[in-house]
């Protein structure tokens, strides 16, 4: 690609689209938004095709020292690449999901989404600490507006909760970043990833970053903003929230906490394990008793993200790769599930599970897609969910069999609440006449479902396409973590019975 600033272009396209949408009428704004996201997706494909697997760690770098104290530095490695791909893939789906359901203030809505896309790509592509922070934090503004303006009944409370929770988490991280930049004398992320901070200070820095990423992730017990925000956000808002925003927390752990503070990460791994185990069990049980479809999927997100954190802090290649795949898979699957909810919500305007029933009779094609994504969420082999969860749990098993045991119950409980949801919505008799009269998918909905379904199957059958770009970066991270790796509890040790008996024989002489 030479020196072509493709990352800057990817940031610029949605931004220009956003400004244009503000000025346009509803229908024109929809078209512009769709075009901008599709162009960005095309650029993303170009990025992936041109990404040199096994080449330099950081590719497509751009660096301009145009600001005081920090520079405009972009660049991606394999981890950032796949997350950027996820973002640009989900964005056209979001615009499609809002095509008919958003009727008020369409221009502003599309502008907020396009702005969001710019900021998400910026988070994953930023190579400067402060630039990352600016992108990371700026996402609050469009998300606040999306939840607050186009959300459901309790939107105001949800938007405040989302804003203040995440802000409080992030500002503490900013202080840690200021300290790090002052100590290391640089704000360059690749340099900082190789910088060895004093292990005592790492503890504090790690906690500061944890405050931010744990809220974004979200980890138990600071996850409570998520169900509120999800339930109140419009369908597309939920897709982007679950699909990409939650990944920022995981990305933060893998980009900052682990490589920059390996000792502190090892020290706090038990905390992460404890919180993740609690999250897996508790939120899965909460999901089991939900009456609201979106809330159920929101709680299942918390449980899945707990598997991600387990894998990340396993300190081995399987765990890290598994976590990345779970993040990608969850991005696709939960996005698709929210889309499935959105499809029937658009028809009946309720998220109450009991208002539906027997949809496989009148909406057989919808039921097919819903089943596929339900199975992917459970982690059926052949879907993306299986690959990620298997790898993560295999990784954690090397560290602690107990943690792996508890983590695995998440899969069982996941099967329980997802199948229960599916049974209540798609099977059984058709109790409600209005639900029974709903038409099946139309062309627009097919166009959104099919790519998502194909991506889920692709990742399930041939995950190598997604693992290959990351392999080198994960290996580098694993090497960096090697010095702090905790000892596993299930290590097989080789005994020496033969030598023992020989010694005994000699002693008899």
């Amino acid at each position, binding site marked *: 690609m030479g020196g072509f600033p493709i990352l800057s272009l990817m940031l610029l396209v949605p931004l220009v689209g956003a400004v244009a949408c503000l000025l346009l009428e509803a229908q024109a704004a929809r078209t512009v938004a769709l075009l901008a996201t599709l162009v960005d997706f095309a650029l993303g494909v170009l990025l992936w095709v041109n990404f040199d697997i096994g080449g330099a760690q950081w590719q497509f770098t751009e660096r301009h020292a145009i600001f005081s104290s920090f520079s405009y530095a972009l660049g991606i490695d394999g981890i950032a690449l796949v997350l950027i791909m996820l973002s640009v893939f989900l964005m056209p789906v979001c615009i499609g999901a809002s095509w008919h359901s958003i009727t008020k203030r369409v221009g502003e809505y599309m502008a907020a989404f396009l702005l969001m896309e710019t900021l998400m790509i910026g988070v994953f592509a930023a190579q400067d600490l402060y630039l990352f922070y600016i992108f990371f934090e700026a996402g609050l503004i469009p998300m*606040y507006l999306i939840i607050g303006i186009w959300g459901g009944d309790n939107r105001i409370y949800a938007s405040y909760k989302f804003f203040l929770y995440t802000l409080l988490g992030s500002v503490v991280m900013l202080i840690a970043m200021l300290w790090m930049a002052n100590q290391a004398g640089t704000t360059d992320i690749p340099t900082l990833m190789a910088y060895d901070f004093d292990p005592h200070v790492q503890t504090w820095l790690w906690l500061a970053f944890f405050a931010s990423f744990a809220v974004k992730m979200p980890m138990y017990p600071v996850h409570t903003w998520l169900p509120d925000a999800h339930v109140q956000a419009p369908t597309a808002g939920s897709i982007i929230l679950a699909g990409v925003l939650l990944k920022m927390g995981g990305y933060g752990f893998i980009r900052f906490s682990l490589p920059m503070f390996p000792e502190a990460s090892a020290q706090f791994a038990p905390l992460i394990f404890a919180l993740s185990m609690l999250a897996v069990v508790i939120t899965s049980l909460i999901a089991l008793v939900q009456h609201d479809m979106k809330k159920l999927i929101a709680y299942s997100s918390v449980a899945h993200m707990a598997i991600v954190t387990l894998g990340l802090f396993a300190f081995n290649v399987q765990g890290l790769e598994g976590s990345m795949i779970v993040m990608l898979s969850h991005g696709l699957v939960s996005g698709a599930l929210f889309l499935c909810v959105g499809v029937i919500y658009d028809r009946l305007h309720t998220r109450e599970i009991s208002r539906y029933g027997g949809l496989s009779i009148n909406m057989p094609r919808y039921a097919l897609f819903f089943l596929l994504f339900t199975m992917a969420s459970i982690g059926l082999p052949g879907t993306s969910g299986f690959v990620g969860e298997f790898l993560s749990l295999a990784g954690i098993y090397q560290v602690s069999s107990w943690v792996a045991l508890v983590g695995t119950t998440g899969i069982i409980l996941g099967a329980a609440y997802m199948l229960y949801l599916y049974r209540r919505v798609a099977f059984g008799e058709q109790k409600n006449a209005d639900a029974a009269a709903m038409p099946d998918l139309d062309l627009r909905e097919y166009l959104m479902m099919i790519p998502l379904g194909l991506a889920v199957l692709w990742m399930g059958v041939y995950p190598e396409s997604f693992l290959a770009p990351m392999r080198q970066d994960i290996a580098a991270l694993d090497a960096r973590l090697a010095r702090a790796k905790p000892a596993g509890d299930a290590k097989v040790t080789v005994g020496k019975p033969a030598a023992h008996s020989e010694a005994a024989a000699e002693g008899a002489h």
Partner: protein
Amino acid sequence: MDFAHSLRLIAPEETLSVAALILLLVSAWSGDKAARLISILSVAVLVGCMFLVAPALCSGAAGPDVTAFGGQYRADAFASFAKLLIYGAAAASLMVTPAFFARFGAMRAEYPILVLLASLGMGMMASAGDLLTLYIGLELNSLASYVLAAFLRPDGRSAESGLKYFVLGALASGILLFGVSLTYGFTGTTSFEGIATALSGGLSHGALFGIVFVLAGLAFKISAVPFHMWTPDVYEGAPTPVTTFFATASKASALALTMRVALEAFGPQAHAWQQIVVFAALASIVVGALGAIGQTNIKRLMAYSSINNVGFVLIGLAIATPQGAAAMLTYLVIYVAMSLGGFVAILMLRDGQGEPVEAISDLSGLSRTRPWLALALAMIMFSLAGIPPLFGFWGKFVVFQAAVQAGFVPLAAIGIAASVIGAFYYIKIVKVMYFDEPVDVVRGQSDWAHQVLLAAMAVFMSPLGYLLTKWLDGLATAAANVLFLHA
């Protein structure tokens, strides 16, 4: 140091005084008919003075070459930085005035002249090299300000605000004078340099009391907690253009003066006053944020917001390093731009009859009736809350960066955590404008001067502002280094 050289150095002050006197004569002869003309000329004079002071900042002027009248007056880079801000803010608040008063038929020719005189006093505060210059500048500014606050004579609130400002301002001046006398008594000099020399030997109890009283008096002027009580009443009652002037130019000059006194005169004994400033900073952040939450009047809210912002500026002072001082100046520039934008937006809020709209509830659904005004106001609110990518974030960033560099990590952590409380009421305004159903109260048309100023401030606060960071950083560092020449 000859007299002619001194007179050359105070050219901006001379220009302002002569212009104010000439315009006063014009107004005496032609009456209120000439009010508009005098306003335009006053703006021209202020802009002209900006050109007069700018070279000192660009060349980083410092030292004896730019000291006039035997050390009483400094025309150095720091003074130049502060004056550019003061004159600029004064000019901007004059530009938005006529449209406001025209509705009441209350635009009088004295108004721009009072602003000129207040600006003159503010400039002297920023240039003070001696406690006496400090006091003369402060009083010149204050007396003009008291009159300005009560300028809308038919309005009871305006008169009340003027009276409150006067009584409490006089009290503050008294406290300050008491501190000045103690300082003079225990150091034997009124010049900042002399005080610094005397204090570097050691700190007597009397001098400590002097420092405390001087800082208390100044805390009144910058409305830092616990001397902040007058701010909401005065900001609410004074006519909005006057509030604009108070929140921008007055604030900048009082903070510049505080920096000069604390860092230059009391610099050698920084540890004696640092804890006071740390307390004032944190208390201002918290009280400003908590106080704003229950407000229903947007001008009162902006008053609490200014208390909150002073807290952040004071964090830069508390660490007493050149980086901290430079961060304060950067913050001040951004804060002045934000409050200017905020108050201009408030001036643009008018109902169908042209009456000003001040209740926050009347802003409901503004984004649907007046989308651009709402967008600008939302940007200002997010910017005041310090959310990136808006430029308000940069001000907080540099202050906390300086604090962390100086090793004040706990102070920075507490300060930034408290800033989240502030975010709550800023996003409440956004919520009212964007989430609530429209009430369609704001219908009035606004003056082009308002629109141009608001647009300019919105562009400055947008992410485009970051392109200025290098330039701003260079200027602020040059200006701040002047204060540490003797340290």
